[in-house]
Each structure stands twice: as structure tokens, then as C-alpha cells.
């Protein structure tokens, strides 16, 4: 593992990662997390990876709707009298 220098601050920062990236932390919690991130490359790299992963997953699983389905949906509209 590459976590030899993992300390209590990192453990706390790791717990904050998901809510931080979801933008649901309080201002004080954001300041706490960012103070640690400013000082800690270990956590900073892993936060950036998590952000990249979310974008990567979103792109990897994106599937376009077929034109045929689009036409079928339009045909479901109720005709005007």
C-alpha cells in the first residue's frame, strides 16, 4: 500500500471525501478538509482521482437512445382533435 504516511488527519479527510465532492459539507467542514488537502499530497491525489473516476464512470456507461426509440416516443403523443 502507498499509505505509509497515513495519519488521523488523513483518516478524517478520507471520511469527508464523498460529502466534500457532493458539496454537502458545511462551510466549516469544507475549510477543515481543504486545510488538510493543502498540506497532504496523499489525500489530494486521492480526491482528484475520485473526481476523475466519477467523470470516467459517467462517460464509460453513457449510452445513447436509439433514433427508433425516439420516434416511438414521439408517436405516443396524443393527437390534437
Amino acid at each position, binding site marked *: 500500500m502507498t499509505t505509509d504516511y497515513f495519519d488521523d488527519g488523513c483518516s478524517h479527510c478520507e471520511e469527508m471525501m464523498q460529502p466534500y465532492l457532493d458539496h454537502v459539507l458545511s462551510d466549516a467542514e469544507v475549510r477543515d478538509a481543504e486545510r488538510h488537502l493543502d498540506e497532504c499530497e496523499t489525500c489530494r491525489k486521492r480526491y482528484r*482521482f475520485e473526481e476523475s473516476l466519477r467523470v470516467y464512470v*459517467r462517460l464509460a456507461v453513457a449510452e445513447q437512445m436509439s433514433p427508433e426509440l425516439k420516434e416511438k416516443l414521439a408517436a405516443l403523443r396524443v393527437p390534437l382533435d
Partner: protein
Amino acid sequence: MERSGSVACVAEREDANDDDEGAEPLQIATEARDRVRFEEDALALADQVYRVARHLANSREEAEDLVQETYARAFRSWRSFQPGTNLRAWLLRILTNLNIDRGRRTQRAPQMTPLEANDYFLYDKLAESGDGATDEDRVVERLSQDDVVAALSAVPHDFRDVIVLVDLGDFSYQDAAQILDIPIGTVMSRLHRGRRILKRELAESLPEGEA
């Protein structure tokens, strides 16, 4: 991004379509205009609805069936949509209910499985097994697109649903809670757990010796 707004209650009012007889011409014209606008707004969201539906359902075929049924029902029940509320969430709520009604999904407490000790393990495994580069973008590219699709499919439905709505569909926790009819705290805990399961599946997809 559509992270606000509420999901209107989807009441079935399919019989309400036939009561136009005797209505004033102006009222009929106004209603026709509102209905056309609703249909156009709903169709403009079809790509986004499909993208979410594709991973709420088990296959492309199921997703296509569900989206068609959803739109058929939405067009019949358009009066029960409250203008100004979140139409995309309203459509997804119909779709989720149809999915459950069809027996493809059951509402139940998900099975709890042990999780990895922390949220960093996937990065650590990828970083330590590569060519030494720890650049975050390059590390993530060691995962293939097929592996990501397979890993998401392997996440149990109750957890996948919230990942699909929040991470792929950009719904707020609140909207996801209303669409799935579960408490917001449950959305948060399933999201947390679901993302870790996804990462575990991704870690397991790596070739022998890489993880």
C-alpha cells in the same frame, strides 16, 4: 445541472382526458396548448431519461420498454404534473414505479456486505500496480470502458439505483429520495456504500497482478 426542484406526486388521472365536452372553446384551446407544451418538454428530456433508465433496468431492451411505458403514461396523465416542478424527476418517478410494478424490482432492505476499510483503496491499488505514474487521470484510464460497465451492473440494484440517479443523473439527494420513495438518510448511506461496492468491483476487474 438539475439539482433542485421537487417531484410532484404522480396521481393517476387518466380518466380526466374525456371531460372536455361542453367546455368553452378558449378553455379547450388553452388546454391543448398546455398539453402540447408538456409533451414537447417531456420529449426534450427523453435522452436524459433514457440514460438513467438504461442503468436502472437490467438491459437495453428493458430500458426501452420502460421508457416507452413511462412516456405513454406521462402523456395520459399530464394533468397531474405540476408546472414549475422537476419534470425529469417526475418522469423518473413514473419509470421507477413501473419497474417495481412489473416485478423487475422489489423494494426491500438491501443485503449488507462487508466493505473495504476506506475509500482510497482503488486508487492505491491502481497506483501501486502501474508504471509508477500516479497522475490521477492516467491512473483512472487503466480501467477499461467494458470493465466500468460490468462493474456498475454488478452493484446490487438498491445501491446502483442511487448511484445512477445521483452520479449519472445529477439528481439531488432529495430528488433521489422522492423518486425511489426512501428516506434521504437511506439515499446517503446507500450512495456511500454503493460507491465503495463499485470501486471494489472495479478493483476486482483488474488483471491478475495489477490488483
